[in-house]
């Protein structure tokens, strides 16, 4: 029995490894995806940060009316005003510029004589496209806030009042997340998606090839006239599917981990994948891959042709990817939720990311959930895998 299983497993692996198309799917694509995720995410973050710190030039009218100290303050926040000749309102309306400032005559006098002074900020939230646009007034508000505080402090001092009375509550925010937590948290979002995508697709090609494919090629009958039992044939093929589906999982995650860790820290930022998350996602992902392999076998066994099996497997792909995406986007996972088949491994990954370390209870539960699911599906799949139904089911 075991010999037959091994014989089939070995042959199916050899057969798959020789299939260039199948191997590309199993090795090259996962590597590319892993490297892409690892390098793309920090680049995106970098770009966002850079934008936040980039010097800001705002077209303005009536700069001469503005208080010199206000312009100084703007300067400290990286904001430069540039006198604009022409119809400022019209260019902003036409989305040619994102924003503009207008000072009215008497602005400086209003400030110094303690009258409310106003400036108009014009913006067009649709200017500059989805990624390039969306003028953020945060920096401007900060600069104005700082200026206001300075002026208020002076006015209070002139009246001999302590400016502190104006600040009854001071909120001192401290982020207690460790760098490991930050890295893992960020990565767990991508990991759930990565694991979901690789597991859902990983062994599918092989599952179809060793069942429906063998039917289509007309080789299945020859295999089934050998003394190998139905169970041995099923397990040998399942073993090959599982093995091949684990390869892309390992490759994707390792590539992600390696690339995100060899990158210089100033480039990788907080997105480097900590080593424990690599272990965590492999240990939770492999039992998941087993469940998915069994389900893939079940679906492809029923199919008569490759094409049949491919369309039959589409719902399965979603059944794996959707829980993965849900987990990626949802917060705080309860320990018991790790037991839910398919969702559990992703929940466990999320928990460990948040905790900043391996959690054996979460991993144990998610593995148990996967194994229970596999144990439930396996007999059904094997029942379908009998010589007569396999060959001549019409």
């Amino acid at each position: 029995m075991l010999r037959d299983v091994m014989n089939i497993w070995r042959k199916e692996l050899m057969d798959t490894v020789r299939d260039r198309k199948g191997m590309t799917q199993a090795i090259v694509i996962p590597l590319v995806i892993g490297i892409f995720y690892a390098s793309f995410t920090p680049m995106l973050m970098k770009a966002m940060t850079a934008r936040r710190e980039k010097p800001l030039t705002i077209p303005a009218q009536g700069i001469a009316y503005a208080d010199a100290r206000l312009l100084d303050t703007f300067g400290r926040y990286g904001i430069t005003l540039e006198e604009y000749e022409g119809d400022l309102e019209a260019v902003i309306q036409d989305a040619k510029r994102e924003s503009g400032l207008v000072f009215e005559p008497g602005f400086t006098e209003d400030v110094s004589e303690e009258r409310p002074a106003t400036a108009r900020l014009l913006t067009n939230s649709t200017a500059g496209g989805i990624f390039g646009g969306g003028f953020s007034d945060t920096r401007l508000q900060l600069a104005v806030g700082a200026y206001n505080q300075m002026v208020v402090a002076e006015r209070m001092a002139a009246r001999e009042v302590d400016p502190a009375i104006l600040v009854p509550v001071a909120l001192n925010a401290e982020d207690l997340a460790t760098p490991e937590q930050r890295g893992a948290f960020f990565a767990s979002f991508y990991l759930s998606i990565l694991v979901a995508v690789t597991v859902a697709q990983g062994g599918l090609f092989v599952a179809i090839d060793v069942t429906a494919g063998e039917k289509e090629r007309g080789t299945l009958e020859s295999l089934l006239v050998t003394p190998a039992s139905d169970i041995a044939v099923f397990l040998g093929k399942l073993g090959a599917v599982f093995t091949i589906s684990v390869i892309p999982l390992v490759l994707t995650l390792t590539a992600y981990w390696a690339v995100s860790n060899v990158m210089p820290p100033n480039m990788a930022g907080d997105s480097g994948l900590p080593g424990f998350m690599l272990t965590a996602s492999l240990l939770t992902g492999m039992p998941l891959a087993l469940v998915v392999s069994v389900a893939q076998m079940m679906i492809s066994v029923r199919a008569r042709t490759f094409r049949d099996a491919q369309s039959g497997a589409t719902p399965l792909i979603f059944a794996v990817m959707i829980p993965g995406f849900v987990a990626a986007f949802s917060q705080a996972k309860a320990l018991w939720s790790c037991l839910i088949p398919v969702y559990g491994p992703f929940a466990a990954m999320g928990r460990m990311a948040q905790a900043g370390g391996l959690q054996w209870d979460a991993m144990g539960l998610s593995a148990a959930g996967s194994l229970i699911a596999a144990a439930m599906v396996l007999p059904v799949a094997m029942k379908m895998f009998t010589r007569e139904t396999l060959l001549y089911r019409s």
Partner: protein
Amino acid sequence: MIQVRDLVKHYGEVRAVDGVSFHCPDGHITGLLGPNGAGKTTTLRMICGLIRPMQGTVIVDGHEVGQNPAAVRRALGVQTDSSGTYPRLTPREHFKYFGGFYGLSGSELDARVQAVIDMLGMGEFADRRTQGFSRGQRQKVILGRALVHDPKNVIMDEPTSGLDVMAVRETRDVIRMLRDRGHCVLFTTHYMDEAARLCDRVAIIIRGRIAAVGSPAELMEMTGCSSLEDAFVALAGGAQGLLVSEYANADGNVNGGRNAGGRAR
């Protein structure tokens, strides 16, 4: 030694096999003849345990297929009627893979594989992947993987169909050689001259029933014909005529669809 007793297999309305009995002694070549759709392939599939018969028994070297299918399969070498090969494996790898299921391994397996390659004259293409093989080359791969474990009983479904003259001769030589070595050979064919020349015994199956069993000479004598082909046509035609009334539907038309075209897989 293969003994078939009272086998029955129906597909809905279609009585694919309807009470077939015959036996194939060791050291003999038995031919199973019959028109398209007569039930030959279905009978062979029941013998090797691919299909469970609704009734009847198959005994191969003392093992009953329903009770001990693995023992029956171990005693059999089967060349199926579907002629597929694994395109990314070489014939040698095919033989090793299949030999592995019969407890062969290591140098013993290698020696058997080489023996089959030599026997079938496959030296030239034994180590080429079967992708793109000609029909004859593929047929040899299929035959070889049925023989790799040197089975006592050999079953072949239309082993010579679609082959050129040379390949047909080679295949017939292999069949004869197996007989001479004391194997039990059961095969199907549509070529009556082939059956007449090769077979020690012939079983004629028509519409799922055995119409006659005997040596080619006995069948000719029985029907008073001078060739096996004429004897076959006499037996088949007679039965066909008989069945027209039996299978005719209310309109008086023969319900031909179910038997036309033969192998529904």
